């Protein structure tokens, strides 16, 4: 295909080109990040002081729920799918994704799903207000009518994820350049292969869960109601059978990104490639058998508690291997600290902190105290914001020059990094303290002794939020006015097929497969 992109909007609506679709995904996820972030700002504003100042408790719950849902399903997952779309064909020397039209289908389902989800905010009875984990029966018998729209929104979104993942698997299994064996694939490709497998395995389970909710709400079944012989806890088992792999779906591609960036700026090959691959696979395997560590307080039998505690702790081992591999990649390298590297190092640092708190949460008797407090909130923002979002920022800075043929403003990038780093820690580090001191999560108002740290946390959140606007500005400014660059290798230490292509990338790359040694 030698011709360029179509003119006008049809280029985007009718896209089959992986770069166009990747771009769509990335912008979509960024807008969802802003939306979900605005909800977080409302939450933090209400929690700035004790007392109810801005919003009603019910609306607060809607904000919490929508924030969690939109960030997880609307911001992070599509962001990484977008990155996969853009980068995987380039990294494996393929002309495009394996199934380009279906690729477009997976994308366009997302705006539909999230339009439905967002529209619930304007419905009678309000948006879903039962938390992103939507535990029955709060999400069934006691839910607002908009829950029906929420359920179908989840279905559509799941369909999108499944098709997107199938596409990614087919691309990786089938479209690699000759000579690129599985164990020669870039690590980002590996992590996505495994992530896609996780997605195909667990999204249908989530679909099953919401389907049963639908039936309990509207058709009189009693899956989650003891009166008919069902069990509300059953819902949680199904949800977390999906939900726990989900958190690795969020973090594995981030691992992949960091495994690309750290070697580049250390000017040294990735340490322990094979063990990285095995560790990723081990994490994915373990993620299926630890789900009930979210349910230590539901009253499982003792053996269940012990089993899930031990199994969960095992995940620290492959993750430890990854952390040590990253650091050893830096060890004896020749390191420079451009913005992508700064974000990647911060990723390793902050994600590890999040991992340590994860380990603490895995200790069942201690989790009986941590559970459903801000300690958990701190844990998962360390893994998801400092993990996934930081690595996403790193990825954008890293590949933006390649995509656009323009260099971003390095000092603005560094400012973005440092404000983010400061704001992030100011927001979420104190949440460990208020959590341990006893503040439950998902509450719009709190007792006085939590006031000080909450205020610090809110201030941090505003700083972190503002830094994202700077990021947005930097990206747009790069695309519009950035200094032009035509070097193939933006980064001295970069390796991989994507860096053999011109900058900016032509509309079609690798129409004939490259030789890969």
């Amino acid at each position: 295909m030698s011709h360029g992109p179509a003119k006008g909007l049809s280029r985007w609506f009718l896209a089959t080109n992986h770069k166009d679709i990747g771009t769509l995904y990335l912008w979509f996820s960024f807008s969802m990040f802003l939306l979900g972030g605005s909800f977080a700002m409302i939450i933090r504003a209400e929690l700035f002081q004790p007392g109810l100042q801005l919003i009603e408790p019910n609306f607060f719950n809607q904000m919490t729920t929508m924030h969690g849902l939109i960030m997880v399903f609307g911001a992070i997952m599509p962001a990484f799918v977008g990155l996969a779309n853009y980068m995987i064909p380039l990294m494996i020397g393929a002309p495009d994704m394996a199934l380009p039209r279906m690729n477009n289908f997976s994308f366009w389902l997302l705006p539909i799903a999230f339009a439905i989800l967002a529209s619930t905010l304007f419905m009678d009875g309000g948006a879903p207000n039962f938390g992103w984990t939507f535990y029955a029966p709060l999400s069934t018998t006691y839910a607002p009518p908009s829950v029906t729209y929420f359920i179908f929104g989840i279905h559509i979104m799941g369909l999108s994820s499944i098709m997107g993942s199938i596409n990614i698997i087919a691309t990786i299994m089938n479209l690699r350049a000759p000579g690129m064996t599985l164990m020669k694939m870039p690590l980002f490709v590996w992590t996505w292969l495994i992530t896609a497998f996780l997605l195909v395995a667990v999204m249908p389970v989530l679909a099953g869960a919401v389907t049963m909710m639908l039936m309990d709400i509207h058709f009189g079944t009693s899956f989650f109601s003891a009166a008919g012989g069902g069990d509300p806890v059953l819902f949680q088992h199904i949800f977390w059978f999906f939900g726990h792999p989900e958190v690795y779906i969020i973090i594995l591609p981030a691992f992949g990104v960091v495994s690309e960036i750290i070697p580049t700026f250390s000017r040294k090959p990735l340490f322990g490639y094979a063990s990285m691959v095995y560790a990723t696979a081990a994490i994915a395997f373990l993620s299926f058998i630890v789900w009930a560590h979210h349910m230590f307080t539901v009253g499982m039998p003792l053996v269940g508690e012990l089993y899930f505690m031990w199994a969960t702790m095992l995940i620290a081992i492959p993750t430890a291997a990854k952390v040590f591999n990253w650091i050893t990649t830096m060890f004896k390298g020749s390191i420079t600290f451009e913005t992508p590297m700064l974000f990647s190092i911060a990723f390793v640092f902050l994600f590890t902190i999040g991992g340590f708190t994860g380990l603490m949460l895995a200790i069942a008797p201690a989790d009986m105290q941590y559970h459903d407090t801000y300690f958990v909130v701190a844990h998962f923002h360390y893994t998801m914001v400092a993990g996934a979002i930081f690595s996403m920022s790193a990825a954008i800075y890293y590949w933006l020059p390649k995509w656009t043929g323009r260099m971003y403003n390095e000092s603005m990038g560094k400012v973005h990094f440092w404000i983010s780093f400061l704001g992030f820690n100011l927001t979420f580090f104190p949440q460990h303290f208020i959590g341990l001191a006893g503040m439950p999560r998902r509450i719009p108002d709190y007792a006085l002794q939590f006031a000080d740290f909450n205020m610090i946390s809110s201030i941090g959140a505003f700083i972190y939020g503002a830094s994202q606007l700077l990021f947005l500005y930097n990206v747009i400014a790069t695309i519009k006015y950035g200094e032009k660059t035509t070097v193939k290798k933006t980064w001295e230490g970069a390796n991989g097929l994507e860096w053999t292509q011109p900058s900016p990338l032509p509309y079609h790359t690798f129409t004939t497969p490259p030789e890969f040694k």
Partner: protein
Amino acid sequence: MHLKGKRLKKLISSPMALFALSSTSALAENLVENSAQAERWQMNLKPGVTELGQEIYDIHMLVFWICCVAAVFVFGYMFYAMFAYRKSKGHEPANFHEHAVAEISWTIIPAIILLGMAWPASMTMIKVYDTTESDLDILVTGYQWKWKYEYILEHGENVAFFSNLTTPSQQIHGEEAKNNNYLLEVDNPMYLPVNKKARFLITANDVIHAWWVPALSVKKDAIPGFINEISAKPFKTGTYRGQCAELCGKDHGFMPIVVKVVEQDEFDSWLSEKQTQAAELAELMQQEMSMDELLAQGEKTYAGKCAACHGSNGEGGVGAVIKGSKVATGALSWHLDVVVNGVAGTMMQAFGAQLNAIELAAVITYQRNAFGNNMGDKVQPIDVHNFKQGGK
């Protein structure tokens, strides 16, 4: 973390205190009424007032310190690498990318460390699950958004009562200064005798709640239709406060728990007083009440229990409109049925088990005669009692 906490406290508290003072003037300077309660700038768990709680606290600290040591190693290594191998220092990159011994050792060493944590944790967990040989059983039921405590007694009638938030809404909405126990105060606290093992049988009536008292190291989900068990044997008297710890709807943040651990004799007299109160109520129920009495009581109950959804003038809201409603102007038995049994599948709960017969009779009478619903009829407590007995 304790030590570090104190030092950090000194460090941050001076500028931050200024900040806090200027913006939350309502903050009392010293909230510490009792050592077992959370205090300002608290950064860590408290050991709690049960032996098991202290054990849990020790495990928490053990894991915390192990993580700290691991962090020092990992981050020390990382910062050393970042520092020593900067390009700006002119360091040339090495080219190794494998080292079997290193890779195996950082698999095995963490595994051993993990064992060191998992083992004591498991031993403690086994103790947490031992709820046998309790001295006292209390059935704890979560309701949207209050707790019901039922003391299961061997002799005589069980003692049961609801425990509601008492923080006035003026404080919540910033029209009044907030008091020290803001959001952590209730009308009827739970009483426990000191040094006795209390077993909590925890369940819920509507959605999932969780009964959590940090000082007792007890947190257990209240699952509708199932009963969970957990126990605590506090060794120190005092007032311990906690909160619902599972999202349960609108007022999840407003269903606190207060447990008073007292000496055995104080507990006994409290219990017998509760029993006499119950007996008096039963007697009261047999009496005829006048329209005025009913309306006065009904207005109170309505304002407390119903107005949130039905509006203070019966104009509706989350709940149906009462003013001129079919039910409130329809058959008495229908009205009784709606209030006592609730409306399945809606927010309208069954109040039959939450309000006593007097309150029920009064609130129904009130609804039928207020807001322009001039039905003129009244319901007596005994009618409610009979209605409940006869089912429908």
